[in-house]
């Protein structure tokens, strides 16, 4: 082969190890898990084909429905609160604030922390025995009660509290970048027409943030569906199954309850949920004509 031919091949040769790794570790793994979800695998993979039996079992498990219900509560509150709070803080910070350079990193630092650290901090702070509740009692407010983390019906909301604390600063940064990109001329024109500040935000600026809302939604939604570590550290899925999410469900069915087939089928459902959000988004972002 001539040197030139070799030179022509080099770019593709350089790319190929990465592509090969991803084809194996992502796409072949997806197919393998899909196949396992249709087998009688229990503690170890086994290849007796059972069709959709695992999916039928899965959808008949109250435990799985509980995990999905929790995901619906957690995911929607997490996304909505992070977005609203993020936009609110970004608008406030965008008012020529003295000390912005000081405040912004304070809002943002939680996202540098792992969910395990976040979970540990909030776990003890929300613990009625030693945390906030007992502190309030100590301060003389003896009627104060805050034991959500021990309450089967309310524990899932403590996961929301900790997750919002961790991620809302990041959403704020996204909106702040969006606000800084708004063309000042448009605002001027609106002011000349006599529009009030509230109107300008409501009618002009916030609607212009649509792409940021979309990006924030995609990022937060896929984080919510993947959420695992925070629940492990904060509540361990409990009390009972009160904070079980699909990710913790998958892990316990696959590795501790020896129901690998059901675990695999739950992983496939998670993948379908994420892809149904991500693929349309990537498609609209990357379609020709929008590419830089």
């Amino acid at each position, binding site marked *: 082969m001539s040197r030139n031919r070799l030179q022509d091949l080099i770019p593709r040769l350089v790319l190929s190890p990465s592509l090969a790794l*991803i084809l194996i570790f*992502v796409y072949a793994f997806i197919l393998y898990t899909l196949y396992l979800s249709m087998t009688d695998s229990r503690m170890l993979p086994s290849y007796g084909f059972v069709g959709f039996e695992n999916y039928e079992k899965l959808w008949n498990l109250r435990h799985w429905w509980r995990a999905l219900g929790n995901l619906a509560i957690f995911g929607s509150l997490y996304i909505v609160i992070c977005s609203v709070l993020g936009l609110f803080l970004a608008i406030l910070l965008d*008012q020529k604030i003295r000390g912005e350079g000081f405040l912004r990193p304070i809002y943002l630092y939680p996202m540098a922390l792992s969910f*395990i650290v976040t979970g540990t901090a909030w776990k003890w*702070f929300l613990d009625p025995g030693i945390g906030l509740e007992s502190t309030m009692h100590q301060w003389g407010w003896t009627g104060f009660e805050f034991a959500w983390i021990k309450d089967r019906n309310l524990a899932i909301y403590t996961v929301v509290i900790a997750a919002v604390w961790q991620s809302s600063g990041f959403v704020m*940064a996204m909106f702040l*970048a969006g606000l800084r990109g708004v063309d000042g001329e448009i605002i001027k024109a609106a002011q000349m027409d006599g529009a009030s500040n509230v109107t*300008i935000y409501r009618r002009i600026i916030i609607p212009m943030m649509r792409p940021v809302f979309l990006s924030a939604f995609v990022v937060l939604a896929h984080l919510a569906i993947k959420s695992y570590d925070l629940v492990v550290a904060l509540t361990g899925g409990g009390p009972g199954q009160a904070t079980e999410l699909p990710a913790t469900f998958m892990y316990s069915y696959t590795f501790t309850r020896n129901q690998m087939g059901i675990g695999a089928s739950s*992983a496939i459902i998670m993948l379908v949920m994420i892809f149904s959000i991500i693929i349309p988004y990537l498609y609209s972002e*990357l379609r020709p004509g929008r590419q830089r």
Partner: protein
Amino acid sequence: MSAEKIVGTGRGNRFLRVVLYAVLILFALYYLLPLYVMVVNSVKPLDEIRQGDMLSLPQIFTLEPWAKAWSSAQIGVQPTGLRPYFFNSILMVVPAVAISTILGALNGYVLTKWRFRGDDVVFGLILLSCFIPFQIALIPAARILGMLGLAGTTTGLVLIHVVYGLGFTTLFFRNYYAAFPTELVRAAQIDGARFFQIFRRILLPSSAPIIVVTVIWQFTNIWNDFLFGVSFGDFDSLPMTVALNNLVSSSGGVKEYNVHFAGAILAALPTLIVYIVSGRYFVRGLMAGAVKG
């Protein structure tokens, strides 16, 4: 946008400005609260915490919990403290970050300056890998690591982190190099420069900002990973996050909250330091990944 146009500077607005600052400071306190709780209670004796006020400053100051968390606390079955796991994490993070960043840079270079038919599809496949739920990979990854003899090793975790980091590193470099003038590359080609020469002499020297972004992003993600660590690690390779969780959630005995908090800060320290030193880049990196897609 210049904000003075939105909030005026008249007298009636002074009150609004005060409210504005009050709200901003209130939120700053909210974000600082858990960190404050961790720090303050990590230097208190256990009795002082049990007596019930997590928000007060320590009456007796002690570094005992820190020493214990670092070198003698019970993690799983061994009273080793977090120290060995800290070094497990370092040994895992450094090569994983380096390899995934180098591969990402080369991929980004090829995908923008040496385009070929179907490169969009290749990029799409790589990009989509950023978003998969890792639960989908746990069972087959355990099998592959076993087959390669890498189960429970740091090398195995490095491999896993490199693979699942490639999507982000490639994305970052591709977006960055897309804005780099292709004419410079073509001119160098005409002068007879080859693939790696062009990369080293022309692109690499102006890549410092995106390298910083990518390294911080990868460092944070890999250091903070829990799922892969708990699934594929054992004593010689378990990372810090898993050890911390073992420390905190161990059921037996007295709950040493002060040691837990000290351990949590130790686990958070590396990413926190990286963030404090170069937070501006950190944010920029997230923006590049999240907003630009």
